[in-house]
């Protein structure tokens, strides 16, 4: 089945130790998103790629970076994780085409990050 796959499902890192989360998709969607979701909060958009064009949200800390080497893969790099970065990180994709369907986002299962 076509889907959005995130690895790992759970990641434990130490304070200040760089960590990379990965996302792959078999939907051939041209837009990929990274969200941060803390307990009982709405997903917060960090950035998105429209094809190769990178779009950073204004309030995304510089500590967060992203790479998209090809259509199928996207990575979230946290350069120096702090305790406040412990959260669920969600990857999503959206399909190209008509405006009506462009905004429907399909999510992966998420990576739960713990910072010790």
């Amino acid at each position, binding site marked *: 089945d076509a889907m*959005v796959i*995130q690895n790992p499902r759970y990641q434990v890192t130490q304070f200040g130790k760089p960590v990379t989360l990965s996302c792959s998709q078999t939907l051939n969607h041209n837009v990929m998103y990274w969200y941060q979701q803390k307990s*009982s*909060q*709405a*997903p917060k*958009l960090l950035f998105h790629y429209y094809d190769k064009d990178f779009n950073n949200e204004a309030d995304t800390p510089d500590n967060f970076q992203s790479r998209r080497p090809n259509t199928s893969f996207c990575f979230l790099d946290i350069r120096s994780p702090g305790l406040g970065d412990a959260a*669920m990180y*969600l990857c*999503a994709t959206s399909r190209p085409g008509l*405006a*009506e369907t*462009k*905004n*429907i*986002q*399909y*999510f*992966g*299962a*998420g990576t*739960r990050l713990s910072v010790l």
Partner: protein
Amino acid sequence: QKEVEQDPGPLSVPEGAIVSLNCTYSNSAFQYFMWYRQYSRKGPELLMYTYSSGNKEDGRFTAQVDKSSKYISLFIRDSQPSDSATYLCAMTTFTGGFKTIFGAGTRLFVKA
């Protein structure tokens, strides 16, 4: 004031009850409205999607949009324990750039 407001709950109902979940919003430019279901420790999955005002039905689920009141609802008929999850509303505008905003979610428990 948040652009999208959603009662966090929790909402607890007996099996078979009709559930009503709601969101209000402040930006009249929102045009597309979605409901996502999120099980514990999982990613959100799309349930319903509507454009502009009106109703849309899919099985036990009905999505309702009232743009004049800036109010959207999701109704679940004959609720089941498997419906226990967090329900997130989301809405999109293309005015001034593409933007999707999520509500914080309402946690629903359906008791057997």
